[in-house]
């Protein structure tokens, strides 16, 4: 499997940086840039463009190819492939490359990449062979070969860069000296720390009657390790049975996980995703439901026992020239506060004249007092709304949603003569800090192979993306 190369486009569709396309004609990369730029305005909704674009051959003798592309901040990264290459390969490489860029430059933008184009070129050269095969993609190994841009390295390079190579070979014993491909050798920290972030994401579809059609929670254990030497970690959970369908960082010993559901690993240095998983509600709850309702096995798998943390009552009426809508949102979280809740509805091609009133209902029940407090202190007591003219969508934003609070949005919009064509669903996104659906608990972390006791930290965070139909 090999890709043909990589092209980074800025938001005007012009290439900023591209890998050398050595085995193809000079027109080949331009052909793909054009194919992408032509497909972009044809997309029916902004951003709705097939991630794999078929590119017909330039000459009759050439074979056809395809352009895989992903959006990344204000840029697009194109990855032309041809022959019988699996497009997943292209997307996997693109994701890896983007992760590497993030590791090197933090927040990405076209300007950042232009500022550091020499580093990006070095990264391209080290991650991709001339034949399009990935070479070194582990961030730890790369950091030995390509120095991350820091003020220090810039100062040194100005001061006459002989020091550069000295530093390079001095600290870690030079590139590829580490016996573990994903870990730098010879690391030293004054304070040894390791942090785990359990980040869970709920995706669900709810139909117009408020019934959950599909619902799943996918989690990630994002880790930041700052440990000296070669620590061997053993992470055990009190309730590992709540997770299934795991995917692991290569550092995890799969056999150990299979044997007793504990994660044994020598971590890479810095940020990495240790594992990904799917939350499965407890077996007892599932079987209880099975006995009470007795649905066939298909239905059993259909709805996991995860409650949607809010209730939405959308009322939309369409007329020939537009429509009115009213959304009523009630938080169903028992004690946590939802944050950054954004509900979005696509209003259809040519929609306009959006007028809305956002208000806060008098819900809250026994928590009313607390809710009142938030209202008086918080700046946005009613929530706010905007109309995104590019995406043709009305957006309703509630920065803080206390438990059991009720929120309202009433509004109207106009449509062109062909009649209103809104999407029959709202996309609701939210986050809940310090909360996980699975309540997956780390029992303990044992570090062997080193003498120190590391400082450990665990945090939970949940986000959600619910489609609520009307």
């Amino acid at each position: 499997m090999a890709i043909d190369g990589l092209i980074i486009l800025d938001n005007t569709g012009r290439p900023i940086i591209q890998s050398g396309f050595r085995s193809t004609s000079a027109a080949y990369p331009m052909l793909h840039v054009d194919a992408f730029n032509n497909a972009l305005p044809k997309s029916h909704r902004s951003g709705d463009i097939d991630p794999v674009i078929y590119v017909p051959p330039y000459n009759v003798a050439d074979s056809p190819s395809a352009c895989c592309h992903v959006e990344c901040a204000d840029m697009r990264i194109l990855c032309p492939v041809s022959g019988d290459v699996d497009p997943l390969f292209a997307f996997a490489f693109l994701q890896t490359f983007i992760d590497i860029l993030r590791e090197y430059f933090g927040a990405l933008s076209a300007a950042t990449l232009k500022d550091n184009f020499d580093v990006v070129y070095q990264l391209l050269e080290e991650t991709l062979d001339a034949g399009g095969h990935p070479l070194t993609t582990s961030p730890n190994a790369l950091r030995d070969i390509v120095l991350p841009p820091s003020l220090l390295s810039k100062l040194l390079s100005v001061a006459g860069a002989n020091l550069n190579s000295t530093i390079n070979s001095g600290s870690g014993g030079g590139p590829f000296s580490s016996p573990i491909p994903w870990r730098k050798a010879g690391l030293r920290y004054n304070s040894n720390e390791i942090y785990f972030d359990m980040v869970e994401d709920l995706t669900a579809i709810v139909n117009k009657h408020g019934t959950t059609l599909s619902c799943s929670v996918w989690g990630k254990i994002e880790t930041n390790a700052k440990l000296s030497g070669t620590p061997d970690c053993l992470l055990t959970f009190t309730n590992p049975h709540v997770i299934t369908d795991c995917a692991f960082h290569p550092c995890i010993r799969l056999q150990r996980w299979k044997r007793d559901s504990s994660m044994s690993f020598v971590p890479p240095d810095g940020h990495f995703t240790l594992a990904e998983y799917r939350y499965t509600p407890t077996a007892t709850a599932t079987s209880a439901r099975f006995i009470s309702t007795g649905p066939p096995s298909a239905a059993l798998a259909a709805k996991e026992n995860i409650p949607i943390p809010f209730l939405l009552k959308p009322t939309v009426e369409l007329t020939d020239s537009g429509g009115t809508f009213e959304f009523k949102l009630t938080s169903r979280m028992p004690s946590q506060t939802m944050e950054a809740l954004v509900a979005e509805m696509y209003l259809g091609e040519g929609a306009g004249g959006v007028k809305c009133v956002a208000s806060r209902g008098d819900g809250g029940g026994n928590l009313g007092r607390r809710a009142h407090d938030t209202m008086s202190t918080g700046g946005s007591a009613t929530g706010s709304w905007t109309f995104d003219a590019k995406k043709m969508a009305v957006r309703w934003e509630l920065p803080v949603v206390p438990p059991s609070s009720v929120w309202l949005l009433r509004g109207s919009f106009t449509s062109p003569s062909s009649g209103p064509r809104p999407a029959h669903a709202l996309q609701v996104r939210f986050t809940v800090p310090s909360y996980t659906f699975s309540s997956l608990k780390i029992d303990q972390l044992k570090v062997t192979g080193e003498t120190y006791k590391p400082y450990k930290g665990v945090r939970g965070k949940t986000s959600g993306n619910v489609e609520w139909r009307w």
Partner: protein
Amino acid sequence: MAALSLESASRTITENASRLGQRLQESFSEHTRDLAITRGSSLYLEPDDKGKNIRNQLDSSSDREKLDAMKRLVALISKGRNVSEYFAQVVKNVASQNLEIRKLVYIYLLRYAEHEPDLALLSINTFQKDLTDHNPLIRAMALRVLSGIKVPMIGSIVVLAIKKCAADMSPYVRKAAAFAIPKCYELDSSHLPALIEIISSLLRDRSPLSIGSVAVAFEAVCPTRLDMLHQQYRRLCRILVDVDEWGQIDLLNLLLRYARTMLPRPTEDEIDNDVKFLLTSAEPLFQSRNPAVVLAAARVFYYTGPPSYHSRLVQPLLRLLHTSKEVERVVIAYVHALSHSNPSLFSPFYHQFLIRTDDFRQVKQDKIKVLLLLANFETHQAILREFIDCADDPDDQVVSEVIRAIGRCAHSIPECTQQCLTALITMIKSQRDAVVSSAVMVLKYLVQSQLTAASSSSFASVAATAQQSPLKIIEQLARRIDDIRHAQARACVLWLVGQYSASNEPTKGPEGVVEWAPDILRKAAKSFSAESPLAKLQIITLAAKLLVLCPSDRKLSLISGYVFSLAKFDLNYDVRDRARSITSLLSGLALSEVVGLKDPDQESRGGVVLRREQVRLVLFEGKVGVADTEDAFDPKSAVLGSLGMITQKPMHGDSILPDWLERGVESSLRDSPDDAPPPPPPPTSVSSSTPHISRAKGLASPVVLSPSGGSPTGANKTQYTDLDAFYADDNGADDESDGSEEEDSEEESGEEEEEDEAEEQRNHG
């Protein structure tokens, strides 16, 4: 003594530090313009850089100048400028002491070596010297440049270089050597024997790091020499889990091809042990974070496993759907192909494919196709509801696709026909053009197939008991003809009305036709001039059909005549032709009062004149049997995990998976001393069972990449206990001890090297 040396050491350190400080200060005061560093390198990208005095900078003695020049060159490259004119000056810097400069020089060389082979030839000595550099990075880079120079003349030099690097002690360099093999082969295929020899030696490589690139070289250079893998097959399976993620993909594909070519076809009852070993070795890879690895493992399961194994690839593929929108797009297409041959695999998980409004259009369309395949007796209710919900989608293409799906659902699952019809008839009342037209087309298809079935079989009873018999549906459609504006849909309704208007029941209107049919013709005649050509053709046919059914009705004849005469002078030649042919067909009805049919030349023309019964036969019979067009692309024709399956177009170079041999090759061919079961975990491995690493050896102790296969060495063993038993006879512990010795010696040399370096530095200091 010790104290003294310490003191002197500290003195040198302080001296060095002060010197460094001085130097920093100097550079700052000297080059104030370098304060621009805070702006980053983007200033190199500014358009006014015309590349003047780059040459001088490259020739200067200052590293800083050289670095600046190289950055400017790379910037020019990124702007698409051809800067090959500086090749000679750049090559001179390839031996620079500064690693930064050297890397940029190599980047430049890697880009231009192919275009400037002659100049590159001049520097071959430098590259050859670099092959012996102590830094593995430089050795690998030198080989990459060397193999990139496209001059057949140096083929043998490159082969030598590859050979040297293939025996390098750094797996990184060996990896580069393997990648260089295909390039060398492309350059001059006469080196094939030498290259194959290198590949076979690399195949025996104990490090899992380079094996993936060896698989690449193998596929490129000698894909047919699968016999070389006999001895390595089991070992390759075993180290699969420790190979880097990209290598796993290539290795899995190679092993899959080997299995299909060399192993006996597995059946439910009998699976060859080697096939089973491949499957057990590939299964842990389903837990890879890399979607391409997961798919490669799924390919192995799908193409080598017997059907009972196929269910194991379901959950991993479903997991991928949540990775990213782009991955979802690709995986859905694969799921579609898989469900085509076996819908039961995914049907319990249909709810994973429910359509979200923010999906890509292509994803929505593929999800509809998948759901349609998954619809069975248990799931059809939910899936049909999903289809009906989806008919509200803002995208017209998706809407027409989903309405077609409703029709097919009704066809394939008779239990839901009624529900589908109700839904479709509701859709006809919609305001949306796209909805109405698709619904009409699907209804036509359904009505026709029902009527065919009713007339041909006992299905009649079903049709009769249904509340909405097909004829009733046509009537409903006909009554709404004014609301149906879409050309094709109108034409379709008109055709249906004509085709099924025959009736023997007594009505208030003209006898022989259903009551509502003549009115449709009246309306159509009124708006004839405004109709689309498609509808006009059908209006003519409708008029002719009604006329044949009821030739005695005067009003009907007059309207038909009006239509025919309008059509004869239509702008569209198809319409004119149709009118002429129809009128001459009807000439046998002898309807003199019909204006359009009066043909002055009729007597003189002669020829055959059809009787009414014959005309009726011509007009009505043989019109059924329309088929809903299937997808043009057959997903079975493409191999899972290939580009052609995603683009739905033939991509040249699509590989075809070999079919199983009747009987595989002799299993003993694969026996090798390497197959000895791994001995108890070596004390040095990072395994939780033996946590005490011999730390005395320091960092260079072989922590993970022990020959028996990396990380979970200790844990690894347990899984293969049954196979251990299988291979128990040819147990040879010698291999393992060999390996560790090798490893040890490698480590030692590594340490030595390090010491040398340290010494060098000391000397420098």
